[in-house]
């Protein structure tokens, strides 16, 4: 089984190629190719995961090419961590394929969409299987490509175009960080292999400064992909893509790749306290910051997007607070409930053809399945006890506290409260109350989505509930035991801090829910009391802290300005020099021809003049007159 695990990414690749070939065919049955092949890789990865659960991992490599003596290798590695990731990725991917069959129905580039999905899944699975940094980096970029293509799937929409570009460039910034870190490590270690890197790190052959530097560079890569501060702005815009894409890429898998990277390189981070702290702080800040923006968004997908950012912040915080397991755990649960939420949102949008939550409402009765599933998702993410989100979030808080990062701890708690609030704001606005959208004529009545769409949601709904029991203080810590067999030796000492932490978390989430209930359901508090009470603050928050504008003003303007300047320089200085020379020669020529005035006697004079000059020089240099 394990030996064959390299096949897992290849199925989606195959589907990509096949679908590109059948691009032309109008029938939508081509979708089944994608579904089938991803299904295959799902089955395999489950098998692999189980195999790893029982036994050891595996690592196989071959030389890719050689630089002088050094061989650059390619291959695949299966260890507990990436086996788990395999399952998550292939599962969500499979479900999303299925879902899209319904969601993308009637789109003229139906086949292409599935092809892109296949490409992405291939890249993501390959990334997870990579045994060395270089290979990871390559798939890392390919994943970016997949996301780019899918965000820009509606290529005719200017917003989509802009968003796709933004996503690629922003992540590219992070990637360059990763690139630098990777190369620096190479010259320290002499290899890209994880295990060799870890070995060198353990032996302490690398100076602390260099350790921190490389760790931070790599973290920059993670920041870019996982939409952490300050490179998060692309992620909300990425919602221009079709909703299933948002579910797959920008909720469950790719954005989690950053977290996965940090986890995969964890020994390196562990070796540098500073790096860990940075990770934690960035994570914490992102969590609260994104959550705050989420409070006031009007677009259902954007709310979810910001919540994603904030949840990713949680994971980073966990890893930074040496809560390795907690991070991975939350990654897992988040993958499920966030994908669920997105798919549900998708089905809502599918039903009402708008993304503005203020135009929705009263869908609970109309969408009999979507409603409850969305509720489950909301509860899970809000960290209501007994659902998956609760356990993972609790773990994170605990480890943060245990790590002595109290400030971040309280930040996280507040973020949790906010999360609960905006999720339920969303829920109430969308599902309860009256339909605020006046029906446009010629629009068919709101109806539940087809079963191909609901089935994946149900699966995810179930997982969103049960995934939490992978690792609980009460039933047993399967996950941590499982991960403990990985290359990373987990920080010792139990993270399960004081008992009151779960209570606090629960309290925070309940408070949030309650507040949302009061405002958006009961209306005891008028909706805009915040806006009224703190106009300035709310304005800033509503405009996402003006980050985009800030970037436009500084970075973008600066670069374009520099470029324009360069153009002028090129035009006037570089070209100018050349023209100066040529005109100079021309002048000389004009002078020469002016001397040629047709007077034979002046010719003679010139000649004599020349001779005399020569003679004079001879006389002077020879010291004749002296």
């Amino acid at each position: 089984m394990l030996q064959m695990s390299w096949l897992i990414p290849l199925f989606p690749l195959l589907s990509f190629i096949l679908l590109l070939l059948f691009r032309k065919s109008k029938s939508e049955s081509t979708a089944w190719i994608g579904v089938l092949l991803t299904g295959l890789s799902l089955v395999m990865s489950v098998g692999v995961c189980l195999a790893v659960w029982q036994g050891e991992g595996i690592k196989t490599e071959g030389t890719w090419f050689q630089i002088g003596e050094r061989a650059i290798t390619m291959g695949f590695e299966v260890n507990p961590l990436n086996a788990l990731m395999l399952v998550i990725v292939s599962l969500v991917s499979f479900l999303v394929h299925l879902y899209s069959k319904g969601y993308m129905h009637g789109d003229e580039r139906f086949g292409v969409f599935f092809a892109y999905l296949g490409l992405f899944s291939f890249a993501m699975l390959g990334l997870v299987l990579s045994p060395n940094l270089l290979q990871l980096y390559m798939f890392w970029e390919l994943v970016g490509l997949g996301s780019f293509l899918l965000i820009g799937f509606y290529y005719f929409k200017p917003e989509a175009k802009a968003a796709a570009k933004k996503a690629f460039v922003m992540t590219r910034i992070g990637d360059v960080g990763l690139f630098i870190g990777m190369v620096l490590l190479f010259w320290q270690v002499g290899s890209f292999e994880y295990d060799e890197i870890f070995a060198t790190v353990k032996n302490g052959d690398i100076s602390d400064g260099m350790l921190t530097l490389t760790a931070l560079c790599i973290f920059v890569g993670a920041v870019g992909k996982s939409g952490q501060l300050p490179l998060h702005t692309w992620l909300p815009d990425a919602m221009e893509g079709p909703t299933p894409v948002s579910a797959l890429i920008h909720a469950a898998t790719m954005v989690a790749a950053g977290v996965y990277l940090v986890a995969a390189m964890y020994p390196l981070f562990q070796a540098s306290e500073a790096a860990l702290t940075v990770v934690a702080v960035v994570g914490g800040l992102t969590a609260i910051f994104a959550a705050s923006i989420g409070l006031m968004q009007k677009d259902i997908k954007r709310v979810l997007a910001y919540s994603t950012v904030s949840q990713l912040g949680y994971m980073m915080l966990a890893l930074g607070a040496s809560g390795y397991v907690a991070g991975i755990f939350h990654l897992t649960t988040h993958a499920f409930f966030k994908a669920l939420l997105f798919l549900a949102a998708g089905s809502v949008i599918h039903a009402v053809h708008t993304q503005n939550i203020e135009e929705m409402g009263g869908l609970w009765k109309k969408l009999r399945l979507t409603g409850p599933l969305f509720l489950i998702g909301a509860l899970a993410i809000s960290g209501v006890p007994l659902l998956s989100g609760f356990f993972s979030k609790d773990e994170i808080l605990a480890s943060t506290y245990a790590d002595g990062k109290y400030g971040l701890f309280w930040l996280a708690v507040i973020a949790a409260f906010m999360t609960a609030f905006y999720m339920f704001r969303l829920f109430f606005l969308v599902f309860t109350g009256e339909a605020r959208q006046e029906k446009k004529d010629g629009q068919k009545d709101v109806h539940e989505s087809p079963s191909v769409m609901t089935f994946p949601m149900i699966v995810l709904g179930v997982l969103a509930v049960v995934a939490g029991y992978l690792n609980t203080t009460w039933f047993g810590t399967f996950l941590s035991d499982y991960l403990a067999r990985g290359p990373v030796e987990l920080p010792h000492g139990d993270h399960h801090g004081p008992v009151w932490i779960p209570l606090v978390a629960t309290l925070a989430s309940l408070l949030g829910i309650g507040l949302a209930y009061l405002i958006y359901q009961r209306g005891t508090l008028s909706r805009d009391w915040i806006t009224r009470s703190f106009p300035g603050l709310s304005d800033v928050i509503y405009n996402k802290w003006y980050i985009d504008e800030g970037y436009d003003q500084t970075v973008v303007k600066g670069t374009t300005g520099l470029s324009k300047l360069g153009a002028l320089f090129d035009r006037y200085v570089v070209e100018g020099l050349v023209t100066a020379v040529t005109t100079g020669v021309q002048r000389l020529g004009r002078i020469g021809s002016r001397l040629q005035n047709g007077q034979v006697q002046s010719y003679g004079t010139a000649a004599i003049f020349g001779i005399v000059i020569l003679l004079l020089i001879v006389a002077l240099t020879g010291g004749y007159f002296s």
Partner: protein
Amino acid sequence: MNTWLLSILIFSPLLGVLVLMFIPSHDEKSIKWLGVLGTLFPLGIALVVLSAFNIAEEGLQLAERFSWISYEVFQSKGEVKYPIFYEVGVNGLSMVLILLTAVVSVLAAIASFSIKQNWKSYFILFFLLEMGMLGVFAAQNLFLFFIFFEITLIPMFFLIGRWGYLEREKAAYSFLIYNGVGSAILLIVFVALFMKTGTMNFEQLAYTLSLPQAELNQLFITKGFKMGMLIALLIAFAVKLPVFPLHSWMVRVHVQAPPAIVMIHSGILLKIGAYGVIVFGAGMFPEQFKSLAFIIGLFGVINLLYGAFLALTQTDVKRVLAYSSVSHMGIVLIGLAAVNESGMTGAVFQVVSHGLISALLFFLVGALYDRAGSSELSAFGGVAKRMPILAGIFLAGGLASLGLPGMSGFISEFMAFLGLFEKMPVLAAVGTLGLILTAVYVLRAVLAITFGAEKDLHKADDLSSSERIPAFVLLAAILFIGIYPAWLSDMLRPTLDAILLGLGG
């Protein structure tokens, strides 16, 4: 047979010229097809050469050497012969470049179907050009190298000046003059070396120059002389490469020349500069080259950033690509400056990969120009709707040129930077900024054309079958190198190792 193989290869394009002579100049169809056949023939021979070429073996292969010119000089030592031989041969490096030349020429010939007039003289010059390029890479002594180098200039002058776009003559002249400066410096250097050492053969020269200083002094070869020669060489090839601030001619040529010719030009001719720097610069003046490494690296980074920055705001896609060429040549310099395996390999990879990528992109731009009658970005939009294949390949090409893994661009960038990071991390780090900028300008240009609301073009049909061949072949090659670089690196290693041995790197 093998003894003559290379010469046959070099002069094989002349067969095409010969046949064309007897075709009536109005017979468009057969001339064009002959044009393609005439380039396929050298390609075939190039493949034969490749099969005869032993990758594992080091040093020169398939070498030929005939006495050519001999000057007799009476000196204090008595009569000294100053012989010039006709010597050709291939090592890994030149083999690769010869293949590149043969392939790109064929595709450019196919791309030349869009030429509107005077096909006969066009293809005759085209063949002469190909002969020149093949010769440059196969030549094994300075004299021969210079001759073929100059042979490439003249056909280019005509091809640009006769078949180019509006400002073609200006472009042709600046091409001529700039390259003239380059070759002028080259000639002086070559003759100076010749008169000092009495030989023009690369290997003998490298050997002579590597003699201990004491013996060199008897030949009047001082350290200063060496350094001067190297700097002159670098300047000469910097014109060809081109290196900031000597790049303006290249931009003009790329904008004005017909697409097929630009494919050749940016695909191969620019590479002569890199080839020269490697073979003459690094190969003959190792110590001096090493001492100049930082400056070379600096210029590399400047090129990379300067080109990228200027490409950011160009409104004409040709100009964007032109400046991107400047930027990518910067990566070549970066690789060379690293003076280690990965750097050198990266540089050569970049040479090859940029050859393929820019050929592809300029070909597509030519196709777009045929459809829109313009290459202004503003003239396009939503091309993906009506021409999905063109748009797709264009996007792929763009991604390749911004160094997406799995494509040739990535390997070369990766190795070049890998190399430089070992020697000058800070400089390299600054250089990586270029990677971001590249992404920005490439996407800006590509998306502006393929994405967005559709603009109507007077001719909006997708790539025709004759246009698909070059596009697909190039894309395939790009992917092949990107996925299986070992093929290239194995062929290069012996040669580069030899050079690096001299560099002591």
